């Protein structure tokens, strides 16, 4: 039971915090507090504003307005050092441990103890100091263990021990169990209970609602950057949390297809990816339809797309494109077969940011602009001009580097690269991430036009509004396997989310 009563001074309080980016409000008027020995569950869909909120607490970004109160001190913004000094510690989803060092060295990284007189590392002292911390998190490894030898769960414990070493009063755990097994998760739950007993507050962020049910004293739900509800200990149920997380009016984005779905373009049978080797995925894409793929972060959507495209190894199963087996060990083979991928991270994998816009558009199909094997600047230019007109790419000069374009126009350049070739099927991975509203609707129109032209269209998206508003059919992935397939009449945010988190 929480030790706090509403009258007690909270350890940490946020008052009316807002954060605006040009064109987007990430957080608006968010207030929350945590007390000594309390576990606060924080839930919300992808993009609800949880990570922005946590970055503000960590001092990584500053809020546009609002105040942060820690004990009796008030701040308009925190710096990373101020956040640490105030006793706020993070246990991240992606582990921040250095596996080339030992446990004690990780715990004291950046705050190494030194020994007189030479100021060399006091390895013995650090190990001695690490031992009680490891005891508090129930670790069964010693401070001199090399981190390479630790399992993921043990590394997670190491992160918590590190948090305790800075005398943390508030420990923020962001999806701490995403890489843990069931028994490891249970150990973590026990550690959280111990932390509570020591009077430490825990903010627990997770998509796994059953874990929140198990450990939280109070739940706060975020949606579209706002606090949409709070649940007390006895109100915390799976359904109550899902109800809070969704419930927004979906804008009418949907345009129905011109014709009913036709022949099968792509079929996946028992496909196994390296990300989820125990799972099998069976998916069929028909011509004329837009197939949405939904799922939580880490559900294996991108990994599945990259496996089909030949970036990642296919561990098992059968992929057929228009009836013919597709065996792509490299993207080049998938592209030759007419299957294209618009990748999620356009800056890293979609574009050559420092190359010209027209060069980017022609990159995947250079032989077509190279009569007699010599690349023709004029043909590149002509091809790029055609695409600029068709996709309304807003660029003053196609010979300027792609980095100078806005997010929406960069994405159009990536699309132009594939559309100027003859696709049978295109997989769009988060096609509208970092894209402004105007360009978004243009991209949706384009997806529909492609589907109507008989191209297979697969859209992976974490944006619920987009998945429901654009798709004709939705496949929900969970832990690498198909958790369910929804047809348009059965679309609901609740339905998708239930499948994605795994209703129980």
């Amino acid at each position, binding site marked *: 039971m929480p030790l706090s009563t509403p009258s007690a001074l909270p350890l940490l309080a946020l008052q009316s915090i807002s954060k605006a*980016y*040009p*064109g*987007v409000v990430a957080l608006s008027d968010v207030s929350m507090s945590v007390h000594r020995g309390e576990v606060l569950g924080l839930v919300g869909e992808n993009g609800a504003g949880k990570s922005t909120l946590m970055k503000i607490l960590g001092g990584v970004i500053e809020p546009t307005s609002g105040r942060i109160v820690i004990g009796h001190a008030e701040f308009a913004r925190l710096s990373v050092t101020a956040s640490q000094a105030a006793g706020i510690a993070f246990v991240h989803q992606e582990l921040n441990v250095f596996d080339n060092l030992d446990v004690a060295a990780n715990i004291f990284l950046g705050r190494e103890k030194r020994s007189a007189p030479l100021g060399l590392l006091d390895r013995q002292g650090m190990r001695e100091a690490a031992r009680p911390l490891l005891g508090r998190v129930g670790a069964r490894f010693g401070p001199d263990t090399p981190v390479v030898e630790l399992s993921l769960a043990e590394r997670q414990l190491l992160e918590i021990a590190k948090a305790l070493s800075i005398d943390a009063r508030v420990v923020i755990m962001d999806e701490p169990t995403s890489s843990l097994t069931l028994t490891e998760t249970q150990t973590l739950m026990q550690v959280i209970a111990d932390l509570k007993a020591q009077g430490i507050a825990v903010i627990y962020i997770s998509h796994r609602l059953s874990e929140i049910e198990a450990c939280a004293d109070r739940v706060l739900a975020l949606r579209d950057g706002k606090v949409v509800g709070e649940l007390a200990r006895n109100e915390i149920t799976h359904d109550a949390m899902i109800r809070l997380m969704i419930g927004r009016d979906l804008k009418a984005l949907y345009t129905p297809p011109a014709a009913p779905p036709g022949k099968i373009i792509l079929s996946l049978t028992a496909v196994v990816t390296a990300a989820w080797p125990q799972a099998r995925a069976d998916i069929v894409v028909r011509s004329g339809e837009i197939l949405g793929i939904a799922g939580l972060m880490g559900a294996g959507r991108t990994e599945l797309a990259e496996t089909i*495209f030949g*970036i990642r190894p296919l561990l098992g199963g059968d992929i057929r494109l228009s009836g013919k087996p597709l065996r792509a060990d*490299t*993207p*080049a083979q*998938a*592209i*030759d077969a007419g299957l294209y*991928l618009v*990748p999620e991270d356009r800056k*890293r*994998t*979609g*574009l*050559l*940011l*420092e*190359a010209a816009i027209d*060069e980017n558009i022609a*990159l*995947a199909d*250079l*032989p077509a602009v*190279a009569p007699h*094997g*010599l*690349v023709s600047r004029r043909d590149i230019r002509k091809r790029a001009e055609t695409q600029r007109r068709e996709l309304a790419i*807003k660029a003053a000069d196609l010979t300027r580097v792609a*980095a*100078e374009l*806005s*997010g*929406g*126009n960069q994405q159009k350049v990536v699309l132009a*690269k594939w559309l100027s070739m003859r696709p049978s099927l295109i997989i769009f991975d988060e096609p509208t991430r*970092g*894209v*402004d*509203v*105007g360009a978004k609707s243009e991209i949706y129109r384009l997806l529909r036009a492609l589907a109507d032209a008989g191209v297979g269209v697969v859209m992976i998206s974490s944006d619920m509004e987009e998945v429901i508003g654009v798709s004709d059919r939705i496949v929900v992935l969970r832990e690498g396997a198909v958790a369910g397939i929804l047809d348009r009449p059965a679309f609901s945010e609740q339905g998708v989310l239930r499948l994605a988190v795994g209703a129980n």
Partner: protein
Amino acid sequence: MQKKDMGLAVLIVIVGAVVYLRNPLFLSPINLGNTANLIGLFGLFAIGQGFVIMTGGIDLSVGSMIALLGVLFVDMVGRLGVPWPLAVLITIAIGTLMGLAHGLLITRLKMQPFVVTLCGLLIYRGVARGYTAEATAGFPFGASYPDLEWLTIGRSFGVPHSFFAMVLVGAICWVVLHRSVFGRHLYAVGKNEEAARYSGIRTGLVITLAYVICAVLSAIAAIYFAMFTRSVQPSSHGNFYELYAIAAAVLGGFSLRGGEGSIIGVILGVVLLQELQNLVNLLGIPSSLNFAVMGAVILAGVLADQQFNRYRAARRALRAMEPRPPADTATSSPPIVGSTPDRP
């Protein structure tokens, strides 16, 4: 010709003018002919190094390769009596295999280019010394190969044929790098290997071919050097030539991160380095200071170039801050133009 190349050409002319004013022998036909010969010899393999650097890699084995292949070529022609055209083909074939080995170790077995070619540097040098048992490989006394000699050390109109060979190779490589599909793929792989792979470019193949080109041009250079020196001393022949080629490429505007550079640039780099060498000789500077002069010039040149780029990037960022039509500013992603392209 790009702006960068123009800058380098102007520098070459200025240095040349200064040397000429101090010592008019600089423009004498003999000096020009000798310098042109050296430019041809060094240019041949520096161009090859350019292809490798374009991918973001490096080939440290060039000097040892020139020694080993030189020893083998001289031995085949001089001692074993292999007809020289056949010996040329065998030498180039061995070079191809070496480049293929480098490329496959790097792309298939994911080894680092520095490590692979450093081992090449040690192995080829060792094999060259072991093969001749430290003896100098040379042609028999009085032996003569008129056709081969005409092709390698002959002159037409006073211009050494090594220079013609370099110009011919340079022209072919210019077309390959700047006009062919493969050349574009090289640039793409050097700029962003991941994005190139996602665009369907066979990145492993492209990188391997770059090492093969480098090794083949080094093999051709090895034959020219062997004919020029007439004898190959396996422990010193070709020492440091790889660093010479890297220096020429960097001077010529190549980035060791990959994705930047031009054939004209690397050739101008070779010209400038040879000019500096010539400067040391003609101006009576102790030849022991040779490397120091080259090092200082490379450092100054690259520094000036980067400062100029930073200045341009800053100006571009300032321009980008000026108000633009609303269609372009309504973006939720942060602007990229503010960041300087030259990361540490």
